[in-house]
Each structure stands twice: as C-alpha cells, then as structure tokens.
C-alpha cells in the first residue's frame, strides 16, 4: 500500500482520500511505535529486575562478610585456671581409660571461669570506664570462651602467659557498629547498654575493634547462643552430600533411560505412557516430591529424618525428568547420517549408540546435568518436609547424619528473630549459594567448550 502511494505521482493535496490515508498511516505508525516501546520496556523491566535483585542482595550481604573483632591481651591467669596437668597416655592403659581421663581433664578445663578471663582482659584495655560484668560480656561473642579453652587444651603451657587474641565481637556490637540498628533509638530499645555502646565506639575509633573477614561464616555450623559465630559449613556439607548423590544417581539413570527411550524402545503405548509420564513429572511441583519422600523414604523405609541421603534421593527423583528430557533432545539432535554410517559399516545398535552417538551428545548431557544439579541445590520446599530444617550444630560426617542444606539455612536465618543481625547474614548466605551455582555453571561452560573442541 505504501509502495503504491510513494510511486504514483501525488494527487491534489486537498484530496480527502489522501488525507484519510495519511491520517490512518499516522495512526498506524504511532501504534507501531507504541508496540515497540512496550516491547523494549518489558525487556528493560525484566533485565532491570535481574540487576535490581542482584544489587540489593550484594548491597545487603557484602558487609556481613566482615565482622568486628576485638584485639586484646589475654592473660591465662593461674589464679583463675586451677587445673591438673594434662594427662599423658601410658602404655599399660586401655584406650578407653585414657579417653576417660582426657575427658575428665577437659571437663575440668571447661569449668574454669573463662568469662572472667575475657572480662579481665577487656577491663585492662579500658581501666578508666565503669563497666558491669554484663556490659563487658555483651561485647564479646558467647562462644569465645570456648576458643580460649581450646587454645589452652591445645597448649597447656599458656598458663600464666599473656598473649594477644582477636576475640570475635558479639552480634549486637556488629549491628551497632555497622549501623544496622537505628542509633537514635532510645536506650530501652537498644540491645546494648549505654556504657557498652560507648566502649564499642571508643574501641572502634582507636582500632582495638577492627573489621576482619568473617571466616566463621565458612568454618562454623549454625549457632543459636552465639549468632556472631553462626556459619554455613554444616549446611554446605549437607548440600555437598546431596549434590554428590544427585550426580551419582540422576546422571547415569537419567542418561540410561533417555538412551533406552530414544534409541531402543519400541514405539508402542507403553513407551508413549512413559514419555507423557516423564513430561508430567518435570512439571510436578517440587513440594509433592517432598511428600513422596516423607511418605516413602521416611515413613515406609524408616530412613532417618534430616539425613542428606533422603534429601539426595528426593532431589534425584526431582532432577531425573530434567536430565532425561534434555538428554533425549541431545540424542535427537544427532544427525541420522552418523547412525546410518555406523550401522552401514556393520556396527550393532548398541555399538552405534555407545561408540558414535553418545560421545557427540556429551556437551548436551553435561549442560543438562548442571541445570538439573543447580535446580536441585537451590530447592528448599521438599527438604522442609523431610525434616532438613532441623537445627544442627554438628558437622555431618556421613550422608546419614543430621544435616541441613544451604537454601534451608537461608530459610532458617530469614526466620530468625534477631532481624537486624540476620538480614545481612542471610544475604551473605544467599551470595554464597549464588556463588556455588555460578561456579557450577562456569565449570559446565569450561567442560563443554573442551568437549566441543574435541568432538
């Protein structure tokens, strides 16, 4: 239409026809522009969400990777630490007896008033301030006394010596110094007392409190009485076990069933049913898999609650359809000429598949695996139903021990009452989870480019 009007000589300018066409063209062009703007803005909004999401999480979470520590001189005062010498193993003792003696001694060491030692060392740093014992103790994280104890158990020669120790400041000091709590709130609503706040500020100004990398985040398990020391290690190991179980089970089973369905299965009603069934399973809500795990693995097979083994099995069942569907797509994409060439040269079907078709699909299978594992590692809901939201402070040493997982730990921290402190900490945990997922994807990309170069 436009071409015609452009090529023919223009009729009289006042022609009503031409006027109408011009009018309609203007309207249509405006509609075109509007439509385009809608499109651009939706893409921009969607991309904007990504950027906004990541920047808020980074903004919230990055500060939590540093936490205040108090550098003080700690004196292992013999007048407070009154314990027997550390027991030595004798050759005529049974290991059980030695262990018992050692435990007795350690119990004795634990009963020492370590809080008193911490209190004294802090008082020595600020001799001019009036402080109650509570003020002093509220500055230092609850579990630091056990660190002093461990130092002493490790090396009993410390008795009577003075060493410089970096004590972790409590969560309340962290919140106060970082300004995560409103500093202008009245005293009744502050978590620290007035002298403690002043002392924290003073120590921070003269450098005795400095921000250090929060290594406890990576070396500790969750902790309720010392939130400053709560860490992700237990959750990380739980997630690691589940990831290994998912990879070990879902990849071989998924790839095998994809090969069977795509290459060997006769095309009949049964294989049709399996196909529909797998497509459906891929869209079943993850929480239903959690119900399956609770009913079958825990209630019927009596596997332990909160065990990464059960979590791994549930996530495997959830990941299987993803792996199967993606592997089938990869197998289907292999050119038929490859199969025909192999079969034509006398290879059996099995040889054709395993020697010629499958190697070409390695990059596709790898991508499918990573997508599946990344999806599994971020999954929370089914794990809640099999009890992986338990509060676990011990490191799981086998997949049958109680454990939690990274996303579940995030969920638990999100629900913590100490919101001022745990909000940044949760964001930090999210950063760790995203970093793990990013690392997985990076590995996938590297491996894939490697496979592709070889293929």
């Amino acid at each position, binding site marked *: 239409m436009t071409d015609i009007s452009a090529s023919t000589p223009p009729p009289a300018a006042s022609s009503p026809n031409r006027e109408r066409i011009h009018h309609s063209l203007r309207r*249509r062009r405006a509609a075109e522009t509007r*439509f*385009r703007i809608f*499109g651009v*803005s*939706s*893409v921009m909004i*969607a991309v904007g969400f*990504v950027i906004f*999401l990541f920047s*808020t*999480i980074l903004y919230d979470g990055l500060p939590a990777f540093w936490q205040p520590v108090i550098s003080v001189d700690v004196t292992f005062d013999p007048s407070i630490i009154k314990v027997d010498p550390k027991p030595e193993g004798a050759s005529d003792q049974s290991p*059980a*007896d030695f262990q*018992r003696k050692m435990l007795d001694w350690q119990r004795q060491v634990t009963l020492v008033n370590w809080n008193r030692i911490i209190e004294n060392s802090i008082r020595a740093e600020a001799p001019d301030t009036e402080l109650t014992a509570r003020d002093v103790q509220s500055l230092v994280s609850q579990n630091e006394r056990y660190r002093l104890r461990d130092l002493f158990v490790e090396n009993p020669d410390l008795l009577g010596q003075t060493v410089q120790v970096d004590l972790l400041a409590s969560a309340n000091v962290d919140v106060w110094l970082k300004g995560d709590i409103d500093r202008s709130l009245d005293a009744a609503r502050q978590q620290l007392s007035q002298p403690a706040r002043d002392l924290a500020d003073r120590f921070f100004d003269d450098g005795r409190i400095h921000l250090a990398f929060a290594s406890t985040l990576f070396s500790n398990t969750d902790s309720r009485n010392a939130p400053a020391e709560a860490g992700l290690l237990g959750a990380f190991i739980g997630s690691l076990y589940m990831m290994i179980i998912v990879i070990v089970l879902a990849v*071989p*089973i998924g790839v*095998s*069933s994809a090969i*069977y369905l795509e290459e*060997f299965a006769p095309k009949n009603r049964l294989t049709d*049913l*399996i196909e*529909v069934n*797998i*497509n*459906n*399973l891929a*869209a*079943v*809500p993850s*929480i*239903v898999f959690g*119900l*399956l795990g*609770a*009913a*079958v693995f825990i209630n*019927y097979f009596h596997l332990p*609650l*909160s065990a990464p083994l059960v979590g791994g099995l549930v996530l495997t069942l959830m990941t*299987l*359809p993803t792996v*199967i569907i993606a592997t089938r797509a990869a197998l289907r994409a292999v050119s038929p000429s490859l199969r025909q060439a192999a079969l034509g040269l006398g290879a*059996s079907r*099995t040889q054709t598949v395993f020697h010629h078709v499958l190697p070409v699909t390695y990059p596709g299978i790898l991508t499918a695996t990573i997508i599946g594992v990344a*999806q599994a590692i*971020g999954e*929370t*809901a089914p794990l*809640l*139903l099999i009890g992986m939201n338990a509060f676990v402070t011990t490191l799981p040493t086998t997949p049958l021990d109680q454990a939690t997982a990274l*996303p579940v730990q*995030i*969920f638990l921290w*999100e629900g913590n009452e100490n919101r001022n402190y745990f909000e940044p900490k949760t964001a930090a945990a*999210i950063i760790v*989870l*995203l970093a793990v*997922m990013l690392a997985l994807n990076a590995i996938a990309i590297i491996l894939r480019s490697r496979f592709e170069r070889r293929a």
Partner: protein
Amino acid sequence: MNSLVVAALLLVLLAVSYQVGLSRSRSVAGNSTLKMHSRPNYHGLMVALWCLVPALTILLIWFLVGDDIVRSYTLSLLPPEVVSGTPDQLRDVVRRVEQISTGYGVVGDAQPYENAAGQSLREFRALTFWAVVAVAAVIGIIGLMFMRSRIAPRLRARNEFEAVVKVLLAICSGIAILTTVGIIASLLREALHFFSFISPVDFFFGTVWAPRFSTSASGDYGQYGLLPLLWGTVMISTIAMLVAIPLGLMSAIYLAEYATRRVRAVAKPMIEILAGIPSVIYGFFALVTLGPALSDLGDMIGVPIRATSALTAGIAMGIMIIPFVSSLSDDIITQVPGAMRDGSLGMGATKSETIKRVVLPAALPGIVGAFLLAISKAFGETMIVVLAAGNAPILRFNPFDATSTVTVSIVNQLTGDTNFASPQSLVAFALGLTLFAMTLCLNVIALYVVRKYREQYE
C-alpha cells in the same frame, strides 16, 4: 578396613576375570580355524559379569543379614540371666562387649564373661568376614570358570552382553514410572487415611481452616476447609500471572521479532538468569525489599498494604515466572513459519500489525499452553508464599492483606513429622493430592496443546 578389603576383592575379581576372558578368547581364536563371532573384549566383559554378579550377590546378602547374625551370636555368648534382663541393661552389655571386641576397651574393669564374649565376638567377626569374602571369591571364580568354559568361536558374546545392557537401560527408564506410581500411591493412601477422620465434603467445601494441634481425646480435630487455601493460591497465582504474562510475552515478542542479534544475545540469557535463582531467594527479596516498599507505597496513596500480603508474594512470584513465559513463548513465536510473516508484510501491514494479527493468532495455542504451564508452576510454588504471603488462612478477598496457600499449609502441617496418625499431619497429603491433581490437569492440557501446535508447523 573391611570395606577396603571388599573393594579390593571386587577390583581384583574384575581385573582378573576380564583378563581371563580376553586371553582365553585370544587363545581359542589362535587355535581354531573358525572365525570368532565376537571380539575378545566382549568375552572379557561376559566373564567379568559372570564373575562379579554372583560375588556381589553374596556380599549383598551378607550386608542385609550380617548384623542380625552377629547380634544373635553375641546374645548366645552372654549368660542367660543377662539376656533375660531389662532391654536397657542388655543393650549396655552388648555395647560393652562390642567395645572390647574392637580393642577399644571399656572404662573400669570388665566382667569376666564380658571379656570372654568380647574375645569370641572378635574371633567370630574376623572368621565370618573372611568366610564371606572367601565364599564370594569362590562363587565368583566358579562363575568365571563356567563362562570361560563357554568361550568358543560360535559363542555370541556380544549379543549376550548387549542384551544385558538393554535390560539395564529399560530398568532405568522404569524408575520414572515408579516415581509417578509412588507419588500417586503414597498421596492416595495417606489422603484416604485422612478422609477416615474428616469427611471429604468438609474438606473440599469447608470455608474455615483451623486445624487443632492439641491431641484431645474428645475427637475434635478442628476444621479443615480447603477453600480459603485454594482461594489464596488462586489469588496469588492470578497476581503473578498479571505480572508475568504481559512482561514475559512482550519481552518474547520483542526479542523474537524486533531485537537485533546482539541485543538478543545479551538480553535473553539475562532474563533467563531469573529462572535459575532459587525461590527461597525471591522469598528473601519479597520479605526484605519488596514488601516494605509496597507497604510504603500504600501509605503514600492511602491504601493500607501489609508488608507480607498476597500482593507481595504475587509480584515476587510473577518476576520469577517471567523467564518461564518468555522463553516458552519465544520458542513458539520463532516456530511460526516465516512465509506467514512475509505474506502479511507484503500486503503492507506494519510489523506490529503482522505480529498482532498473524503471528500471535498462529502461535496462540502454543502460547496458551505456555501460560497453563506457568500457572501450574505458580500453583506449586512454595518458598515465596511461605515467606511473603503472611500465613493467614482466612477466606478474604483483599489482595493487600495476608493470606495463605495450599503449599504453605503443607509445609506448616508437615515439617519433620514422622507420626502420620493424626489428621493434623495427614491433611498435608490430602492437600498434596489436591495440588497434584490440579497441576496434573494443567500440565496434561498444556503439554497436549503444545504438542499439537508443534506438529502443526513441523
């Protein structure tokens, strides 16, 4: 040490049997005038199979029953008055005997019978372990010898091995069916159990959700009306769709039809990142950033909006679903044949007119399928609603207020509970069954529609 021995045994058997098969096959081939049917490695593999499978079976049987045998042997070692004592004492004694048998010892002095029992338990353990290892090895070697004797030029070892592989592959693909059967069976079983406490009519048509956690003997379990939860699910999913469908569809259209290659290469993966973020992170985002922002906005325009509300959860869920809608629609739009576009453009239609009047109608079935899949995903989403919807299972129609959903109630009723005897936890399975049925219907329709659509243009 034990598992190391077993692993070493299996590895040795594997290596030896494979080599035996290989060399036997070669020597048969060398001495025979006939041509071998299968290559030596297939003979090796068959011999390895015949050797390892019996050996593994023996070890597996021991793994399953070994502990019981050791335990009954331990009990037979103890004096009868200890065995007939209280279970607690017995367990304590057994533990002490086991400690003595491992050489760790016990605290204090052990009873003489404990020492004796520990000593014989230790010998018994070692004896049975080595006996099992030996039996496994012997059986494996018998299998090996049998298969070795079968090696002949006519033996179709490759076909036999391939048949085994095929059976294994088929078993693997059966696991998917087994999963579905397991889901349906476990949900049905526990849900029926639940309906023996609460009538299905009260469940499906009740308007009050008030499960009582007290284990009162009066038989009053509280009320389990599904409707408030269902309404919450529908309301939040609707809000999510209102966010996801326009944004997702328009992004898909723009990226498929307008965007230059470079823009597409950057924007498409960027949007798909949203799909890879775990939902618990959206929950955090909704709870910490989005909810308070909406609440402030509500204050500004004079509408009371709660920080945790259907609106907050719905918007966060919508953001999560955008890439789902956009990449599915993108696939479908790019499948519309170019000739249809060319025809429309050739008739003088503008690009947007072509898209609105030609491409989208042609792609409509597929896009509807994509929407249905997105809705099913919204129904099943859990973590966002657990964190951001406020958990108020009350039938009300204000989206600015707190609400609750089917998935939230499943989580609340069944977190780490193993006692499936009360309706309080069993209701989770009835809810799960409802959810499964709803998403199954949506998925079946959607998959059918999408499949039909694909066939139309392929």
